[in-house]
């Protein structure tokens, strides 16, 4: 029994980590730019497709896609922030939301237009294609890889934000934009940077999804809603919250499917609703 629970925990962790990478970018862009980016899921999709494209391009070498995909996404992020979002920061949230929604629609069809409507898929990189025994049961090596990358990304982000100068700039700007600018921070450029970084993270999430999932236009929607739930549970704009939230949701899913299958569909939303009712600002968010 204990072993079974442990195994499920590992499964939940891997699911959570895959979600975390997407949620991280979403949370970051919201925390700093105060934009709820619905198109973040589409960035994830784009990341997956671009990775797939590069992999095909370079004779099926996954690692090239792994490296290039997120970078390409950062470029996409640059364009989105610099030429679109920058024009609407002063506007009401609902308009920002609408703009991100417009991107969702456009990206979905763009992908269909470029790569066609059929499912795409690439094999797992040979080194990670096998399974590893976890408490006596096979578990995908790639799943563990995701756990590793996710955790690494978690620590890297924590370090970047809490320990580096750039992180300090980001925090400062997030808390007091005016003061940041009068001590010399170029706020517009920082915004672009943060958005690119968020896009890069979404791309990373996409790249990691490629070997385990099938690619199809619109694959971003299901992710964005879950990532969104995660961010809300954790507290809008709180990276730590997003991390915990993602792991929590992964666990809930793993155990829920086994012990409470009826509620799988509602699970995420029930959690979200409960958190919002009890503690609207989320587990790690700050009260307004």
């Amino acid at each position: 029994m204990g072993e079974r629970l442990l195994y499920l925990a590992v499964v939940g962790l891997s699911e959570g980590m895959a979600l975390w990478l997407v949620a991280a970018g979403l949370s970051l862009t919201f925390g700093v730019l105060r934009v709820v980016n619905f198109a973040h899921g589409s960035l994830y999709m784009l990341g997956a497709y671009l990775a797939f494209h590069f992999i095909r391009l370079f004779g099926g070498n996954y690692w090239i896609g792994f490296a290039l995909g997120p970078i390409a996404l950062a470029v996409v992020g640059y364009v989105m922030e610099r030429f679109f979002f920058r024009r609407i920061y002063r506007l009401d949230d609902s308009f920002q939301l609408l703009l991100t929604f417009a991107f969702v629609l456009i990206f979905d069809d763009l992908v269909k237009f470029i790569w066609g409507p059929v499912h795409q898929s690439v094999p797992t990189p040979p080194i990670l294609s096998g399974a590893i025994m976890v408490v006596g049961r096979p578990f995908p090596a790639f799943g563990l890889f995701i756990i590793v990358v996710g955790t690494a990304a978690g620590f890297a982000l924590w370090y970047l934000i809490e320990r580096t100068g750039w992180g300090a700039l980001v925090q400062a700007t997030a808390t007091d934009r005016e003061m940041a600018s009068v001590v010399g921070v170029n706020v517009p450029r920082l915004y672009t940077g943060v958005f690119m970084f968020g896009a890069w993270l979404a791309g990373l999430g996409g790249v990691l999804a490629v070997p385990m999932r099938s690619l199809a236009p619109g694959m971003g929607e299901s992710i964005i809603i879950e990532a969104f739930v995660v961010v809300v549970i954790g507290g809008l704009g709180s990276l730590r919250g997003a991390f915990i939230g993602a792991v929590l949701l992964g666990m809930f899913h793993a155990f829920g499917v086994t012990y409470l299958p009826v509620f799988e569909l509602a699970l995420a939303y029930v959690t979200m609703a409960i958190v919002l009712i009890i503690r609207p600002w989320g587990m790690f968010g700050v009260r307004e």
Partner: protein
Amino acid sequence: MMLRVEGLTKTFDKFVAVNDVGFVIPEGRLTAIIGPNGAGKTTLVNLLTGRLTPDKGRIYFYEEDITDLSASKRVQRGIGRSFQLVNIFPRLTVRENVTIPVLSRTGGSRDLIRHLSGFKDVRNHVDHILYEVGLETSAELLAGQLSHGDQHLLEIALALATEPTLLILDEPTAGMNPKERQRLLPQLEKLVKSGSVNLMLIEHDMDVVFALADRIIVLEQGSLLVEGTPVEIQNNPKVQEIYLGGDLEDSRSHRQAQQNPSAGEKLVEVENIDTFYGMSQALHSVSMEVNRGEAVALLGRNGVGKTTTLRSITGLTPPKRGTIRLRGEIISGLPPHEIAALGVGFVPEGSRIFPNLSTMQNLQMPTQVIRKKDRRWTIEKVEKVFPPLQELRERKGRFLSGGERKMLAIGRALMADAEILLLDEPSEGLSPLMVRFLLDALIRIREEGITILLADQNLKFAYQLADRAYILDKGAVAYYGKLEDLRGKEEIVKKYLAV
């Protein structure tokens, strides 16, 4: 008793905003509450009107304990208020604005089906109120399009419309230009005369206070200092103390001041700038100069445009008209971060340090974004000026005391390699000891050749630091000259600064 307040206390994480305040106000009085910035006046109003709930103490209105009533209930009981910052319904017409409170008074606001135009009596009542405050001609305009002064009138109209027995006006004249004041004062007088309503007035403009009030309550640092008739207050030394900073005899800083004569060339030149917040004009063609190496004081009561002047220079609120030069180069119109990089350091009111960053990070931040070779300031050097910071290197900003925050804010500005420091109310809300310490530190900083532009209400503080002064009144420069010349000119001091 109309209003009875007992031991009212409110603290915001450790900072005591209102401290054990108690007083009674009988029927038919116009009471004014005065006190320097950060004295807790607005907090007191928020407690009385139910926007905040006190930690301790009770409030009785006509002997009914209303301490736990919601804001809307208190309004229904007859406590109306206006707000310091205009707080109206910008995208509704003036008439619609006033209609809302009238409806809630008559209960009509619960009607879901009848067309608004059907409520003749309501409409008449609204028109009457608009006439009362002199807005009848702009009834169909959108409130947001009104002039700043008219918005203040509307603000008062909104409060009146709730038919209060006690009307609390929070700085109704703040940021009004002379013309607008001329329109408002009669309105207020009319109200007082009518006797239909008890007024409580929070105000900085002493002309207004003494023209209207028959009782004055003075707050300082959250506690009730004195209470009395205008005459008593005017002759009360304690009050003079907090407003003017008491005795002007302290030669020490003057020697300092003499040691660096203001011979340096022009560093900052402000040429008749007009600055606006949205629709309302805060500065009316303000001009001033600051020479390299000198310390200039920007004096005047609240809401006369001191802060706005500083914000205009930093680029946070760029002027609509006029130019600002730094070392002869035009900087007005540049984004704040570029102006900062050129050597303009800003220390805002309340310090506004980055709460979730450590002292160290706060200090280092400018150095990563403003790249320069030979910096005049290093962390060590800043810590020499502000030794306490040394102990606090790793502490997060949010855990610093008011004084520590102030030091950090100044240090942060210096680390940006500022050539001129813009200080906004540096002495506000600090203990006398802290003020003294700060003063010495700033003098040290001056000796390092840093130019200082200081905006402060505390005349004493200015006297000890600055050489020259500009006095702002109602968004325009009312007087400028050497500070010691002010000693002779008591009437100016009285008119613009004192009580």
